[in-house]
């Protein structure tokens, strides 16, 4: 295990804890000076971080415990009332009243009216699975064809489009009028046109699919690069040993791709917890409130509803959801560094 800076000195001191090393004298002063100097050098970065990250985060977390006015002032301390209200008394954010079956997990995925938090759970499950699945499949398949570059650039194009523009494009795709919306045109011979974005039961999946379209390219490019990094000797050796293509993929490539896949998954997870723009453009959280997600609720409460304290509480919940994944990510990076 690699220890952080400054750590070894302490561990060396551990076996003989009785005697303190001399604190004063030339050596002590020197290290103090060096430390001060280090501090001075990182201070611009610290100042920027404090101003733009630490202070706003502190402000938001504090605000979450207040009932605030539209000027974001700390008008009225109310303890954890915002959180309590969000989690127990706001069906637009979390509504468990419709879930009472034996198989809660299945119900959570099947029913789509559990509020913003559960909508976001749908996003996490389907968006990540589909993006990684499509991205991986495309990366593996593209590596086997001659026109790989062309395929990859075409699939990467949506990454160059802003989510707003992607939203507008998909508004056309899902349009109710079969003369405009290609999805309804395709199902026209078999079915009446469907208001994909107008029904609570389909709206979340329609949005998720549009967003998958926009992110698959990124996943594909990252995984494609990782595939290029797998030494051909290993694959050839497997082939010599008589492994079929599927076995090579399953037992050789997939394990070697596990790190890039997990990194991409974490990136997608963070992305999906803060998803907002495409929903704002395509449905405005509707119909009703059925396509709201966590970030959308934060916006809706903070600005249109003018309740920044309540919105801040939503932001804190978002932070709490993302934090463990970030920690995991950092840990993973550290352990990888030791291995290589």
């Amino acid at each position, binding site marked *: 295990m690699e220890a952080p800076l400054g750590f070894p000195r302490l561990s060396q001191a551990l076996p003989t804890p009785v005697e303190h090393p001399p604190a004063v004298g030339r050596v002590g002063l020197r290290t103090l000076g060096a430390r001060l*100097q280090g501090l*001075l*050098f990182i201070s611009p970065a610290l100042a920027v971080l404090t101003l733009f990250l630490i202070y706003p985060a502190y402000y938001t977390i504090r605000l979450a415990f207040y009932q605030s006015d539209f000027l974001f002032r700390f008008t009225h301390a109310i303890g954890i009332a915002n959180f309590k209200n969000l989690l127990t008394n706001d069906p637009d954010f979390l509504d468990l009243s419709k879930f009472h079956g034996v198989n809660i997990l299945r119900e959570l995925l099947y029913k789509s009216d559990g509020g913003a938090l559960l909508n976001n759970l749908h996003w996490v499950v389907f968006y990540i699975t589909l993006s990684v699945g499509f991205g991986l499949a495309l990366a593996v398949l593209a590596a086997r064809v001659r026109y790989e570059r062309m395929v990859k650039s075409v699939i990467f194009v949506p990454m160059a489009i802003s989510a707003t523009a992607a939203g507008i494009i998909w508004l056309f795709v899902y349009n109710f009028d079969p003369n405009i919306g290609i999805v309804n045109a395709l199902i026209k011979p078999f079915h009446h046109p469907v208001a994909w974005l*107008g029904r609570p039961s389909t709206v979340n999946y329609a949005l998720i699919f549009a967003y998958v379209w926009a992110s698959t390219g990124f996943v594909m490019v990252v995984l494609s690069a990782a595939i290029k990094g797998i030494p051909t000797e290993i694959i050839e050796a497997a082939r010599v040993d008589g492994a079929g293509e599927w076995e090579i993929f399953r037992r050789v490539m997939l394990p070697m791709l596990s790190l890039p896949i997990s990194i991409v998954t974490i990136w997608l997870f963070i992305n999906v917890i803060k998803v907002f723009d495409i929903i704002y453009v395509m449905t*405005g959280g509707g*119909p009703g409130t059925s396509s709201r997600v966590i970030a959308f609720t934060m916006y809706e409460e903070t*600005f*249109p*509803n003018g309740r920044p304290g309540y919105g801040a509480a939503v932001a804190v919940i978002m932070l709490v959801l993302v934090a463990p994944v970030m920690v995991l990510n950092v840990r993973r990076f550290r352990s990888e560094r030791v291995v290589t």
Partner: protein
Amino acid sequence: MKRRSVLVALAVIAVTAFVSAIAASASYGGKARHSAKSIEVFSLWGGSEKDAFLKVTAAFTAQTGIDVKYTSGRDFITEIRTRLAAGNPAEIAIVPRPGFLGTLARENVLKPLSSIGLSTAYMKQNYGPAWISLATVGGKLYAVPAKANSKSVIWYRPDQFKKYKWKTPKTWSQLLALTKKMKAKQATQGFAPWSIGDGPSQSQWVLTDWFEDIYLRTAGPAKYQLLFSGKLPFTDKSVVTALKTMLQIVNNNYALGGIQGILGTSFVDGIARVFEGAPKTPHAQLYMEGGFVGGIALGQINPSLKPGITINDFPWPTINAKFGRPLLGAGDLAVAFKDSPEIRQFMKYISTAAAATVWVSTGAVISPNKGVSGSAYPNLLVRNEAAQVKSAKVFRFDGSDQMPGAFGDTWGFALQNVIQHPSSIKSILAGFQSKIAGQWGS
């Protein structure tokens, strides 16, 4: 050692420079930048509505030499709130939703008109009592009514009506009968009776207008006022009655594409289903929304439409004879966030009949100003609408616009739930009531 101290010194200088730069930029924002004579007016119009308004500001600039910078944002509540929080609001905003302006007035960020040189007596000369009371919060007048709309009209194609020998209905039962007649033709002619566009991305206000027109006619103007000022709960029986009346038309049977079609079609697309490509058979025959539908149909959808021949409207039919034909209207109000001689001049200017005449002659708006003559309106559709607004004996303002904050949207979403789950009207209303209770200001 020497080199090190130089580095330290450099670092100190860098930090000092950085901090002072922040301090400097922070103090910069507070300074007034209005040495030049100009003001900023914020609203939410783009396109033809914006062009029409720019004609008004151009006339103002020609008269006074004060420049008007027009900025717009569709998401006006968010925009106004963020700019207020940053301490940098536009000087003047012209926005709908008196409910939101009431919220702002109670937060003490608006200048009362009397404090910027527009006396209540002067305002009463120019505007009718309904408008004055709309712009009043807590006994003080805060806003100049800048434009008005009738929302009590139903749009149709006179050529189609002639072809099938239909008559414009005067009562709700006649409207239902007409709807049935149209439905009978659907199988052979391929059109649905109604097009209703309440679909994705910000069209949920269309159903709120349906509800309001019907509530006004089934429960009466007095109850309407109580309901939309928080004095009558939404769980009241009268609300259920009005919603059930609404569902007689707003349902799978009569709307183009059924409930799916209503939720899947945006407001403008809905208009197109009736008025696109004038000569051929429309997808639907009737569309219910305010006077501005005419401008959108002529301007954006089908410029070859002929007012009175291929596009026209009839007033909302009566439902309960006792309440007759009250008018549901909407409008935009101009408010000032700051005070300066230029702001005073502009607020005064838009309250004059002269400014209103410039504006209405573009055909884009109806003015609530009493001094504007009917001949100033350039075409039949706006002239009719202006006459309807002017002659209305009972006038009620769009209720969802009077709801506090963004509850107008929340109400629209609740109505989307109602049309999908008519059997749970009561629980939907109870849910909405529990949210809005306590949010109405005094």
